């Protein structure tokens, strides 16, 4: 494998590792809540000789919140499942909005460490594209991670998708105070990201503070 291919492999592994670590952290928190809530129901039953109406309502509320949390956890697992299946084929037909939004959800915890919100403003129509969803997500991840690192707490990053004659674009816009980062501090260099975009016959451009990734429809 040549050095460019090796670099890509390493970046992909690091990217997948980061996503999985963040996911497991999130799910552990979900499980911790479910375990405590279930334990609390047991404790309430054990602590009272007779349950009054207030206790019954309280117990019902706890059971409902357990059910809600299980539903949220299951939905979250669906995001990781879709993320994993993006890597089934090198190129496939997929919806750009869904692909980018999946990544946005999976990166929520990473961004939330600095209370940074990743907002979305997607073109309302389905944006079908035939390309590599895994490589697209890698590029978007690298840009988002770099922006999260240099933005101050409580900042915002905008994610927009739009369709043009050139193809379909993802526009990533940081909003907030920034600490400049040197090229050496970036996980993924600009030339590396531009190379990936070229492999997909697309473009990776910096337009002011924004980053625009454009891919052809097929």
């Amino acid at each position, binding site marked *: 494998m040549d050095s460019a291919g090796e670099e890509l492999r390493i970046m992909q592994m690091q990217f997948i590792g980061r996503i999985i*670590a963040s996911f*497991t*952290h999130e799910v*552990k*928190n979900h*499980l*911790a*809540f*479910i*375990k*405590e*809530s279930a*334990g*609390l129901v047991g*404790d*309430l039953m054990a*602590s009272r000789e007779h349950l009054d109406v207030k206790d019954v309502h309280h117990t019902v509320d*706890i059971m409902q*919140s357990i059910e809600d*949390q299980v539903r949220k956890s299951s939905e979250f697992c669906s995001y990781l499942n879709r993320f994993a299946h993006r890597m089934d084929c090198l190129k496939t037909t997929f919806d750009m909005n869904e692909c980018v939004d999946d990544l946005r959800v999976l990166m929520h915890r990473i961004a*939330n*460490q*600095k*209370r940074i919100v990743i907002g979305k403003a997607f073109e309302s129509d389905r944006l079908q594209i035939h390309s590599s969803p895994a490589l697209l997500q890698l590029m978007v991840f690298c840009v988002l991670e770099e922006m999260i690192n240099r933005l101050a*707490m409580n900042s915002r990053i905008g994610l927009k998708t739009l369709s043009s004659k050139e193809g379909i674009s993802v526009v990533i816009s940081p909003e907030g105070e920034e600490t400049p980062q040197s090229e050496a501090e970036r996980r993924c260099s600009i030339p590396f990201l531009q190379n990936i975009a070229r492999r997909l016959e697309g473009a990776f451009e910096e337009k002011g503070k924004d980053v625009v990734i454009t891919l052809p429809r097929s």
Partner: protein
Amino acid sequence: MTRTKVLLVDDEVEFASALAERLQLRNFDVRAASNALEALASINSDTPDVVVLDLKMPGMGGIEILKTIKKIDRTIEVILLTGHGDRESVQEGMQSGAAEYIMKPIDIEELISKINSAKVKGDKNRAESRR
């Protein structure tokens, strides 16, 4: 017999609320805080015996909060709450003065045992510092 005062610091509010209630049923005097600001305000208004502190929190993280607590009052004992894989952070926390750590999802009896041990340790340190 005075109840052990516990401050729970975790940004997962619902988890902290359920855990607080379980500890209250076991006769602990429990407060909860969801961030550093709330935690430090709570400590300054009513000093806890033990703080149960989540390591990974948005903004001011667990380690920084731990160091700040120790500067306010080194006799307040801190138990770190952590997910699997935070070994380096746990090590840093223990080196920064944490008494113990426990992994999520927690075992309530294990947590209570650690809280009781930490309380004893804190009482001993307070007694020694008064001499």
